[in-house]
């Protein structure tokens, strides 16, 4: 399975490029899907430790607003992206220091509460954030060259794909490292981890900060692609969307989040196109189908197919 994964990832990336090339309007959707995949990858790290964060959109919003605020003075993708990641990581570290004391429902709810605090701040500080109308992101450049028109779409798609590939590799290495393996121990029995002399809080903190950085990168890409940020990015439904994608994609493999995100965005866009009035129902049915028939998510289905292919 592990050996097949890089090839699958490569094939998936090529397929995305082909689709983005053939249908320009999908390029935008796929860029957003890749960005969300990156954020969900962070959720997946926490899921390995058995913890669900219902507030990770907070870090995506941090990344997005960093881009919106910094774009007029230094509108370079190569500057904004690391800046968004660092800011999200720093905030993740501060929050992580106390939030990693909590587990399960308390962990989930505290994340949710903090993300709603951020949402309210973004909405209330009207003079700075322009409230619910949001901020239009100033024109950007990459490595000093201004981006506009269709070229901008390709640059953002390429950026999203590159960042996604980097994080996919990081997450893969991280999960087979001792720190990554210890995450599973938090899920099964934390006390044993402590007996081994490993700090469970430290293990969770590293994963938490890493996930915040990923969400920050995702938010930055979303802001640079849609060129408009609103407080809705930090709202609980956005966090719920990330968890939804994690379940849809399956938590078993590092590719799961990206499969989930692409599936989610495509279902959403086709449902919205086919039935504008009841597209939410189509999404709900898709999730129900996954829970009932494919508890391992999209990744679980693919892994199952591959195993069967090898057995025969």
């Amino acid at each position, binding site marked *: 399975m592990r050996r097949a994964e890089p090839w699958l990832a490569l094939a998936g990336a090529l397929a995305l490029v082909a689709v983005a090339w053939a249908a*320009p309007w999908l390029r935008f959707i796929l860029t957003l899907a890749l960005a969300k995949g990156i954020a969900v990858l962070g959720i997946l790290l926490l899921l390995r430790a058995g913890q669900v964060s219902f507030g990770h959109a907070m870090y995506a919003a941090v990344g997005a607003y960093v881009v919106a605020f910094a774009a007029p003075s230094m509108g370079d993708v190569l500057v904004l992206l690391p800046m968004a990641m660092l800011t999200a990581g720093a905030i993740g570290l501060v929050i992580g220091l106390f939030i990693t004391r909590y587990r399960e429902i308390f962990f989930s709810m505290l994340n949710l509460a903090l993300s709603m605090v951020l949402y309210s701040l973004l909405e209330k500080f009207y003079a700075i954030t322009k409230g619910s109308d*949001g901020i239009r992101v100033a024109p950007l450049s990459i490595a000093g060259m201004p981006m506009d028109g269709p070229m901008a779409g390709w640059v953002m798609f390429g950026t999203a794909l590159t960042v996604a590939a980097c994080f996919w590799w990081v997450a893969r290495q991280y999960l087979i490292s001792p720190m990554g393996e210890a995450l599973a121990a938090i899920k099964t029995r934390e006390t044993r981890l402590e007996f081994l002399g490993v700090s469970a809080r430290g293990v969770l903190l590293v994963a938490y900060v890493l996930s915040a950085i990923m969400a920050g990168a995702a938010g930055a890409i979303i802001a640079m692609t849609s060129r408009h940020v609103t407080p809705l990015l930090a709202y609980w439904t956005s966090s719920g969307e990330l968890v939804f994608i994690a379940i849809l994609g399956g938590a078993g493999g590092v590719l799961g989040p990206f499969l989930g995100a692409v599936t989610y965005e495509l279902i959403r*866009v086709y449902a919205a196109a086919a039935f*504008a009035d009841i597209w939410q129902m189509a999404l709900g049915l898709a999730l129900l189908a996954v829970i009932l028939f494919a508890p391992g998510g999209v990744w679980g289905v693919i892994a199952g197919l591959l195993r069967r292919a090898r057995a025969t």
Partner: protein
Amino acid sequence: MTTGITRRAALLAAGFGGVILPETLSAQTMPKPTEMKVGITTFLSGPASVFGVPGQRAAQWLFEEVNREGGIGGVPVRPIFVDEGPGTEHLVGEFRRLVQSEGVHVMFASISSGSCLACTPLSDELRKTTILWDCGTQRTFEEGNHPFAFRTQGYGTPELMAPLLYLLKHKPDFRSIAVINQDYAWGRDSWELWKTAMDTLKPGVRVVAEMFPRFNSTDFSTEITRLLALRPDVVLSTSWGGELTTLIRQATERRLFERSLFVMPVAEPSMPALGRAMPVGHIIGSRGDHWINHPAPRDRALFDRFIEGYRSRFNEYPIYPVHHMAQAVWALRAAYAKAIETKGGAWPNDQEVGAAFRGLTFPTPTASITLRSDGQGLEEQIVGLSSFGERYPYAVPERMMRYDPVAISAPVGQKSVDWMKTLTPGMENRVGTSI
């Protein structure tokens, strides 16, 4: 859920994109299409669907009428609706899909100001004629130049100037005011505009309370208690929809309406829901001049036919989003007629349609609307005092004043707030005619 579906969907999409795109993106001499597609973004879910659904109904109905009369330039029109409810990022994706994959000829964008602010830059990028059919933010055309975007109705500045001038005329001696607006951009923006204009036209009014209850609140008891204690002469609220209805009900129960004069610039859509529960003698606006009891419409027969047509079809009275959608449809028809005529009968491309919109004057049943050189439409404003008559089961205005939009809008290229600071006291006596 297998990736089979994903891939298949992706391939389908690729196929679609390949087939449809070249036709829409190229094009200097355009062949006449067999069908004209209009992409319409409107709220189909969430609290703003009280505006979005009537808007959608109006579009379906009016395009059917247009098609029955032979379509636009002989081409039948098909509206394609998109839900604005899920937020900006989804909407921006849908906008691209409609333009790049569906190949729509024109976009009608957005009720929410946030949506409009996100969609207008897209119209620049995709070079697609976009009619801003309902949103009112002054920021759209004051913060940037958008060659392909046009607003076929008034906007925030005249929609607040009209009730303010009415107030100054109706109750010139008021000394204190309180505001209770929804805590989001329109609530904040409208208060900033109102306060700037009020401080210029009548300096020295004391603001006793600025309250911004949470968006989608259902309980205003604390705010009402404070207002009862503060006894302001005037209470301003630019809230709308279900929230305004709730506020009025709760404030009436506690007799706040008997102590203070209310000014509600977006009251009209809440009136049918309130019925006879609406207190009389308060200042109400409707984001335009399309009150159902308009005493002197330009074309009485057309106006009555429009009102009755909507009412008999959907069993409800038309509210302002219905009129705004109608204005967008009529503007579209007028602009295409103009562009086709200019081109000697040939089908116009996006640039030519855009050129036809600029400076376009089109008739509405009540008056006529002109699109300025920046794309902003000039629509008359009518404000009056709530009252009950025999004819309608809900409150309609009386002692109405009509305001010329040119006099109460910021000139092209000026920001509303800067323009308001140049006004001079006594404007209420110079602008506006009683009808």
